[in-house]
């Protein structure tokens, strides 16, 4: 497989993937989670069979909460996303859920509640009510598994820090690559190495982001802070891969200069790629193995995080072999024509 010889094909494929990703992102759109927009997420499990979505939505609306969305989670749970919930709103929502979970009429449940609150006064009347109400209390109840709430100011701060973070990582990497390859500027300027690495990184960011655009339509996935961290980790992994290939190019270029051989730049890059395939693929395999384990059995809270990383690592491995190095040769060719 001569990547350099067929660089046009591989670069075209990469160009197509990037264009398709941009199309997906533009067409499906991205849905941002409460980390960035502010709002609340409430995750509940019903111990008995969960009520219907419409009944749940009604219970939320009855509590005075508007613009909430209800999605199923697991066997008998719901995830409710809504604007920032005040304490009393959340309490009302949970109270209504308890009535729903009870499976009995709201009225009867109210009786039982009154009975429990007045039980401290040992009058014969209330004691009687308490006894009658216990028979009407159903066993089902609702468990509040998780509640996250982020105010709008915190949301806008997190948005900013996410943007700063991505910019800082990209800038940090381009500077480091430029610095690390400063001594091999004879053939191609070290800035080219840094810039080519960035093109590969853009590819690696676009692919998982496109995946999230599709997932936002299919399963309602939302972009949260964890997704941004996954993206940044992908950047780290991908540049890691790219650096190993570049490093080999650096070494082979140095050897060529020392030995005074007449290998062309393209040949040197090609040889370097051949020498580093095995390592790139093997490291990807071990990383993909642990990520697959995390995705399949690591539980729901890190499921999408693992999926993002899985896709990103594949993209990163592809880009370091089929984008970064061919592009390096291509840029070199353009420079020679001038």
């Amino acid at each position, binding site marked *: 497989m001569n990547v350099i010889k067929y660089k046009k094909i591989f670069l075209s494929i990469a160009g197509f993937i990037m264009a398709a990703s941009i199309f997906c992102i533009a067409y499906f759109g991205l849905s941002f989670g409460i980390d960035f927009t502010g709002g609340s997420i409430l*995750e509940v499990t019903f111990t008995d069979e969960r009520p219907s979505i419409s009944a749940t939505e009604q219970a939320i609306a009855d509590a005075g909460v508007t613009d909430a969305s209800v999605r199923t989670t697991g066997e008998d749970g719901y995830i409710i996303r809504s604007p920032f919930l005040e*304490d009393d709103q959340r309490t009302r929502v949970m109270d209504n859920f308890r009535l729903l979970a009870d499976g009995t009429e709201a009225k009867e449940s109210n009786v039982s509640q009154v009975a429990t609150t007045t039980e401290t006064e040992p009058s014969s009347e209330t004691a009687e009510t308490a006894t009658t109400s216990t028979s009407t209390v159903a066993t089902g109840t609702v*468990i*509040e*598994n*998780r*509640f*996250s*709430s*982020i*105010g709008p100011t*915190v949301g806008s*701060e997190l948005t*900013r*820090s*996410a943007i*700063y*973070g991505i910019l*800082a*990582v990209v800038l*940090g*990497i381009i500077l*480091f690559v430029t610095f*690390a390859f400063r001594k091999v500027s004879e053939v191609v300027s070290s800035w080219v190495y840094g810039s080519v690495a960035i093109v590969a990184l853009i590819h690696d960011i676009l692919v998982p982001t496109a995946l999230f655009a599709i997932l936002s339509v299919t399963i309602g996935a939302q972009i949260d*802070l*964890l997704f941004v*961290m996954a993206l*940044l*980790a992908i950047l*780290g*992994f991908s*540049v*890691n*891969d790219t*650096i*190993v290939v570049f*490093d*080999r190019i*650096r070494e082979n270029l140095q050897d060529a200069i020392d030995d005074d051989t007449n290998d062309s730049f393209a040949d040197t890059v090609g040889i370097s790629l051949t020498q*580093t395939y095995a*390592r790139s693929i*093997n*490291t990807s395999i*071990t*990383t*993909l*193995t*642990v990520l*697959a*384990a*995390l995705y*399949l*059995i*690591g*539980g*729901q*809270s*890190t499921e999408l*995080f693992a999926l993002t*990383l899985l896709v990103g690592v594949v993209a990163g491995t592809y880009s370091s072999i089929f984008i970064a190095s061919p592009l390096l040769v291509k840029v070199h060719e353009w420079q020679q024509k001038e």
Partner: protein
Amino acid sequence: MTKTRITAVLILIAGIFLGLFAYNTEVSPDSEYKIQYGLDLSGGAHLVYEADVSDLNEGQIDPAMSTLRDNIEQRVNALGVSEPLVQVETTSITGETRYRLIVELPGVQDVDEAKEMIGEAPLLEFKLRTGNTDAAQSTTDDLFDNGTTSTSSTTAPEQDNYESTEPALTGRFVESAQLQFGGGRGATNEPVVLLNFNDEGGQIFADITRNHTGEALGVFLDGRLISSPVIQQHITGGTAQISGNFTTDEALELRDRLNLGALPVPIEVVAEQTVGATLGEAVKNQGIQAGIVGLILVSIFLIFWYRLPGIVAVAALAIYILLMLLIFKLIPVTLTAAGIAGFILSIGMAVDANILIFERIKEELGKPNASMQDVVEEGFSRAWPSIRDANISSLITAVILFYIGTTLTQGFAVTFGLGVLVSMISAITISRTFLLAVAGAERTKLKHALFAPGVRSGDEFNEHTQ
């Protein structure tokens, strides 16, 4: 050679002790080196409060925030939660500086009750009445010359007609509160609450009473006007007395709340995360399972693909994991779901340095005329620049991730960053020692088969080219 082998054995023994330490500290019920799990795994509440410091000037903010933290800490301690955390955090990412208080309550059962205890603390303020003072005079009593103010309840006062004094006098300056009976003139058994200001508060109170004699001073509790006495004269004693037609219970409660610490500044919840203990436990177990399964699969792959060096890599990986656990236990690092994910990812990447080295050794074995020791050494020195550069770029990423993360997501950056660092160090020390130890000196066909299946030996290479 013998020296390397002894070192290798010593490393293995050290590894066994690390394993014993990790195991014993986890199973023993009262070990202080147990791994600490974040609230998202152990269950509990993570609350972020924002303090409204708009009424304070620059120099007052820091002392006010530290008083606020102490006050909230006292209240949180009263909740009986084990190992709560209360810390001040400032952020200025959107331009203006915001002052926050992070409260972590592990394993708290009733979050609503906790929030009530924390947030609904009395905010005591003294404000001067503006505008028509005649109305105020008609509803208030007097001030005693022994340095206390005495008031009786006012008739539906217009709360809006008051403004803060300059500087503002608030509960921040109250050192202690006491319950007394019979403070008010006439109703001798009426319960009143006696406030002792600290020096600064006493001074402000003295200034107010000097400069505003004849005006009404409103006493606000949680934004509600509870009394509005008229200042009769300059008071220097540093104590004030509040009476508001309290019942004994009300007065007692007010005293306790004030003593628990009147909040120096108003606060409100701006972010919250609450996780039920059952869910957290499930997430934790799933994460640990995923880690173990991932580790086993990676080990199988390494041994299948790299044979003898693969076994070396697995041993090095095991020691790497034990070292990481040791670090988690000693620092200690609080593991969150994101942190476990970062650790699992680092297991996959930790073998990268080993893989780079093995591939280089394979290549070196293809070259003629070198002893096994030279081959391994050369493989290492050739792989080193790649390992170094690749890991530095990962470290840059980890540091930036740490800075943008929140308490729960920073865990990813911490475990990922530590993983990169520890795996790099373990590759160039532990893997290297192990490899040199098993490589021996002689190059044999067996060793070729074990080290580099499929690669022609150097001697065959020689015969072929000659």
